């Protein structure tokens, strides 16, 4: 992950979107990042546009505004490319808000989080501002799709002076609930500790010692994954939840994320896995 130098905040004039601007302002100051405001719609003079979007006058000098006449999600995604954005911050719902309880995010947010290659920080419907953030929680399932989240969290935490807690939740019962890397449990006092160690190591191999030193706790728990994460977020006063995910929000997918989106009050940073690197070990079926 490259250091975040540019943050994109889509605004549509709603209070929810302005909450995103507050987070961006707070983050931008600490990351020394440029803030880009994007508004999809007809062009108008910049000051007029910012006023229409509800941006306070004192904030305006810090912002670059981009007005793009395209559908909102497409405009956001093309701006990510064009301005080399490192982070998108947006609310789960825009101006129209949730129509009923059946959707965890609005259609624009959904399209952005599904298609964005860069991390997207989503303010959930029940978001409550709580600055400064002091800690972040990173659930690690052991699946490759979640790996990049720890690297992102550690790098961010190092720059924001946050502590990082990791959670691995074993399913409530039955086999196959855990994707822990280890397969054997010989000598539990050795194997389990080592499995956790390796789970962390393989998820942040490029992080510096200082970044890895941000890890302050590992919560190994058992139960329903959603329940456990919600409990940990509440009990530990988590300021930022960092989730690795595969990017598919369709029915039947991302069930935990959808629950968290409805039930937590802290921002959720969604991180997709990095492209699979070119690698081959010439043994077994790969032997030649």
């Amino acid at each position: 992950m490259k250091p975040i130098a540019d943050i994109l905040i889509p605004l549509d004039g709603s209070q929810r979107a302005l909450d995103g601007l507050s987070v961006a302002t707070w983050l931008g100051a600490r990351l020394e990042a440029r803030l880009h405001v994007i508004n999809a719609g007809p062009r108008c003079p910049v000051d007029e546009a910012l006023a229409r979007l509800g941006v306070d006058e004192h904030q305006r000098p810090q912002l670059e505004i981009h007005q793009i006449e395209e559908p909102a999600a497409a405009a956001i995604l093309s701006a990510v490319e064009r301005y080399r954005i490192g982070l998108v911050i947006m609310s789960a719902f825009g101006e129209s808000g949730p129509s009923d309880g059946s959707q965890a995010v609005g259609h624009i947010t959904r399209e952005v989080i599904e298609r964005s290659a860069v991390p997207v920080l989503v303010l959930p419907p029940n978001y409550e501002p709580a600055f400064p953030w002091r800690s972040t929680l990173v659930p690690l399932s052991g699946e490759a799709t979640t790996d990049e989240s720890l690297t992102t969290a550690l790098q961010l935490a190092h720059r924001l002076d946050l502590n990082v807690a990791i959670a691995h939740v074993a399913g409530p019962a039955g086999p196959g609930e855990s994707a822990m890397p280890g397969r054997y449990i010989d000598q539990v006092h050795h194997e389990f500790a080592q499995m956790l160690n390796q789970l962390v190591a393989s998820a942040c191999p490029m992080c510096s010692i200082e970044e890895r030193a941000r890890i302050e706790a590992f919560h190994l728990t058992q139960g329903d994954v959603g329940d456990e994460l919600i409990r940990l977020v509440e009990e530990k006063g988590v300021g930022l939840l960092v989730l690795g995910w595969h990017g598919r929000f369709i029915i039947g997918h991302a069930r935990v994320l959808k629950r968290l989106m409805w039930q937590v009050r802290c921002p959720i940073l969604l991180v997709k896995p990095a492209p699979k690197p070119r690698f081959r070990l010439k043994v077994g079926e790969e032997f030649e």
Partner: protein
Amino acid sequence: MDGVVTRTAELHAAAWKALFDAYLRERESRGQPGFPLFQLERDYLAHVDGKPRYEGVRSFLASRGLEVPEGKPTDGPERETIYGLGNRKDHLFEQRLRAQGAQVYGSTVALIDELRGNGIRTALVTSSRHGREVLATAGVTDRFEVILDGNDAADLGLRGKPNPDIFIKAAALTGHWPEQGVVVEDAVAGVEAGRRGHFGLVVGVDRGGNRQALAEQGADVVVADLAELNAEALQAHFRERAAAQTAKTLASRTAAAWRVEQEGFDPAREHGMESLFTVGNGYLGLRGALATPLPGSQADLFVAGIYDRKQPSLPYSELEFMAQERGEYAYSEIVSLPFPLALTVSVDGQPLDLEKGSWREHRRTLDLANGVLIGVTEYRDDRGRQTRVETRRLASLADPHLLMQEVTVTCANHAGLVRIEAAVRETSLKINHPHLQRRDLPARAGVDLRAYTTRASGYTVALASRSRLEDDVEDRSYWQREASPGASLRLQRYVGVFDSRHRDDPIEAAVAHVQDKRWESFDQERRDHEARFAELWETADIRCESSPATTQALRFNAYHLRIAADHDPRVSVGARTLSGRAYEGHVFWDVEVFMLPYYLRTAPDVARSLLLYRYHTLDGARQRARELGYRGACYAWESTVTGADTTPRRIVLKSSGKEVPIYTGYEQVHVSADISYGIWRYWQATGDAEFLQTAGAEILLETARFWASRCVADGGRYHIRGVTGPDEYHHTVNDNAYTNWMARFNLEKALWVKQWLAEHHPEQWASLQASLALPNEELEAWQTLIGDLYVPRPNAEGVIEQFEGFFDLRDYHLSAAERFRPPLQRLFEAEATNASQIIKQADVLMLPFLFPEVCSREVLAANYDYYEPRTDHGSSLSPPVHAALAARLGRLDDAQRYWRESLWLDLSNTMGNSALGVHAASMAATWQALVFGFLGVRFFEQGPVVSAEAPRRLLNEWGTLHVTLLDRGRAFPLKIEPGEERP
């Protein structure tokens, strides 16, 4: 199709020319820069011939440096997009096809007819979306069983030439593998596709000026027209190439079986590669980290026997997430030392490493034959400057205190200022190496000297490094040179490693050692090391003639077993050897039960050293027996330096406060009998009377004494209560079959050795009996105990009960997902598991594994059938035991599955934890499964004898098997050929 079967190339070429010429003129008319028009002779072959239409557009425009938007496939011909222009060309072609029609090559049609007459199936592939239309126009559609054109390719998602997708699909539709087929092509891209698809023969048709290009891209035969070939000639070419290919492939694969190679780079797998690519010699082990390690690398150096008190800090072997009580024992865990072969290379200030550098090729190769790790990385910066860094390292087998490294830096296509620094990687000593305190030392000219003292155990380890650049006259650790294009800078390096266990002054010893080394002897030092590896392979190599991949894996295991152990009688082999921090370097029953039988038959001198380690820790075992309230010697379940047990009594999950009791430390007492088993097998394999008279006898007698005190009399029998057997899911059980059997074996062998000593070495016996204060009455009591000790026997169904009450426990049907991958519930719900019949690993089945002669085939089958379905293989030691027994039972599907699971356990990371070190016991047990299971080898006076059933048990992929076994000082090369009758 075009150019081979039909003559539409002219139509296509004309359409392409019309398209591009018109387009370029349009641009010019809009005031945009002009470009050369489409040239039939050059541009057709170079950019569009044989390619899908849109790729042709991209390729030609790129040749003119033009970029247009991709557009959409539905773009009309008027759109200035890739798709729009491609569609415009299509219209132009259709116009010409309708106006002029398609012609065929008569010679091609004649050859097709001849082949079809010989029963050969034919397929036609073309990138053209008009393929079927053209064939119909030409009247040859019915000459092909399979037709795939551009529309099919799009529908099926097949990539265009030179990708072989469409050819492979066509072969599949004819019901054949690509290797069985012939590709005939006139386009260079098509020839390349045929070669990349591994077709049996690729024929190039040169319609003019293309012969060299076709040959260079892989055409086996190039003809001007297919009239030059007939079916017989084609088949002769096919056979000729197949023969050449077979020889080339076999030679290549056979050579490749001597190395393990990684291509590319995945940071998430780096810890795993570091374990696999460890170099070592038994005295030290150096993980295979990159020469410039990543920030998260576990670039450890381990020295056998250097332990220190437990350090809970991250990222050490025990996470702080799980606390444990380990007291103040000063030898709790093996010490990680800094990486001594670190390298920093930069060109004009740009660092060359995989973290920051832009690399284009990376390979890491473990040369198993010579015990050398080779790394090659080619970097290319954004200015196109290519620099190659090659490193070689070894831990000398000829000189255990010596590490060697060679580095070559080549600026391939540029000149530049190259900076090289050779150092010890001491970054964050406090975090990465928390046991160590760095010693302040005065600087030594030409020697980079570091020394560290462990905090609690007080050991000192010294690293002395000398390095020299090839053309330099003095030793330094930092160089800066102007390098010209193609020229190489070569660095050589000696590192001496000494510790205070071996030398009173390890610092001076390390300095003297490297100062004694001469640069002109560098190659000789390497050859001395390689000669030792050559000796190793004389006895340790196993070769499967038909399966180089299996041979490679067996060699990889033999390599790691060799570098795990040497001849120091005060150390043994930790569960993960000197290749990783896991298991903290602790020594378990693994050594005597799983590894020792391997060393006995390949390196008995190493086996002797391993048993002497038990002799050196005998006092610790005596102490432990006393602490537990017994007599004699009770060996530690987890042992390091003194023989004291380092197993914690519990672990605590910090996050929940949940306590998990650990029973193994005080209940898994079978380890003492396991050691007596090792001694007995050593005696059988070597006849080493000197060892048996001294160390062997004393251990056998003292462990027997322990068992005599551990057994309790009840109801006229003796029992062993409150133990844990190999199956650690069940603790505090009574009369565990394995434990009781092994205890009786221990007692029997103690009495045997007493008798042997009394008869052959009476003075020795008298002395030993006196020193052990072992009265005859006590020995007589052992005899009674042997007869009266309860050892579970097969029931009416032939099944031996694992322990008292096992048959009454809750039965549990293991799902497929649980087998080989026990869920975390085994930790959270340990007591529920304890109350069920789920077994972690072979327990009762260990008995026929260790003593093949003791039970009948029927009893073996009954126990295998009962216990195997209840076992979730929560240990790497379980699959090889099952492989051996399944092989003996002739159940080859099971045997194959379990054996493969074991064989590739580390190379394929099937356990997911090889990053923390390799699994030595599993490696050796895999060897046992092969030798004693599949081959059924038994040793007699005349040497090893392979079971008559072995030829029928060999796995199909192996072919003829070659293995050498040592017995009583003689090497017996064995060749086992597969039998004709296979189950």
